[in-house]
């Protein structure tokens, strides 16, 4: 099944969750998402989502200079971001339960 459509709906949620767990830079977040099982998520999508969430105030960012390589832009979650995460988690749970029930009804 093509999961890109599904992903688009929950990418905000997934990214927030990952960042809430631990601050990270773009590729780091991407790696964690992929490691968590969302193998098909595009890196540009992750970066774009990070940017959007930052613009919306759900994330904060800071730069960590590095002597060995290019600087990295780290993202961290804000209190507003946490609220949004909580809300979206609840919405997701409700939604997925509803869909699951629907499907069970159809399958049976």
């Amino acid at each position, binding site marked *: 099944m093509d999961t890109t459509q599904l992903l688009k709906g929950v*990418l905000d949620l997934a990214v927030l969750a990952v960042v809430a767990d631990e601050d990270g*830079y*773009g*590729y780091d977040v*991407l790696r964690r998402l992929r490691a968590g099982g969302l193998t098909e998520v*595009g*890196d*540009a*999508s*992750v*970066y*774009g*989502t990070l*940017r*959007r969430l*930052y*613009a919306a105030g759900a994330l904060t960012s800071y*730069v960590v200079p*590095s*002597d*060995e*390589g*290019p*600087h*990295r*832009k780290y993202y961290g979650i804000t209190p507003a971001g946490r609220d949004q995460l909580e809300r979206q988690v609840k919405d997701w749970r409700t939604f997925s339960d509803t869909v699951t029930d629907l499907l069970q009804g159809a399958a049976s």
Partner: protein
Amino acid sequence: MSESTTVHPEVAAFVAEVRARLLDLGEEQREDLLDGLEADLADQRADGADLGDPAAYAAELRAAAGLPEQPRRRTPPAWRAPRAEDVERLLDTARRQWFAELQRHPAGPRAWEVVAALRPAWWVARAWALVTWVDVWTGPWERVSVVPTLGVPLLGPALLAVAIAVSTLVGLGRLWPGSGPDRPLLPRVAVLVANVAALLALWSVATAGSAYLSSSPTPWAEQWSTTTADPPERGLHVDGRPVRNVFAYDADGRPLEGVQLFAADGRPLSVDPADAVHGPRRADRTVGCGWLNGTTRLFNVFPLGQRAQPDHLCTPDDPIDVPITAAQPPFAQVPPVTSPVTSPDPVPAEAVPVSPEPGSVPGPGAGRR
């Protein structure tokens, strides 16, 4: 993490490509998006992943970041020659707007009906304008005339006829069928250009001074009319001046009377009676009186008689009692001359019998010298 302090060229190129596709965004926004991209891409590459297509990357980035899609032109538009579709679209739009405007005015459609009915006249006018324009620009300068001349005789009228025929065919739709949007682009533009050129030519002719316009149908007629003098004077004239009276003398130098003069073609060399008048003042005024053929006064028989009268001319039936006297000749005698004829002439043409009857009327000068 990356061990090198320099950016790999592949990564740098990728970032540059992505940046190029984000030029429509503000600099701050763009740099925000690109910030850290280098490092992340380096990491990706270090992991062995292919960097992918920068264009797709940029598009995905925009979508995820909630930014609008890239506008069509990726780079600031450089001027390029208008394509056929552009021109057609322009023409169609102009046409549509024109008719919309027309509908807006109350008298618009009706006025347009009249104009549309005059289209055949325009076909002729534009053909004439174009041929005349060719005429003006080729060959020596000459005035604009109704029928264009092109140096070679008959070429002007022939070309005009051909041009009118072509113009009509185009207007009717036989040549280059269709009209307006139905025509293919090239003929449409060609007709449009021709119409505009014809309009300009007509306008320039209309506003040109009368010095440029010939008043006659063709320049040949004009040339003739300008060299024609005033209407020919009536009566006998010498060097442009009217003759009042003629005095004849024979070969021996003695004055002659009753000499009837005719030109070689038989025309009588008559003095205009009005020219036979002499005298600055009414009191001194005399009129010349012609010899009589019955009751008709002839003014080609000389010398003319004279009569003093304050006005009018010497007419046969006027009841004036003043006698007609002989005119005073300028010389009593002139030197004798000899004839140039060396051999006898052939018999001349028949003479017109105009001699006055002897004794019926007292001839001028008879015994009154």
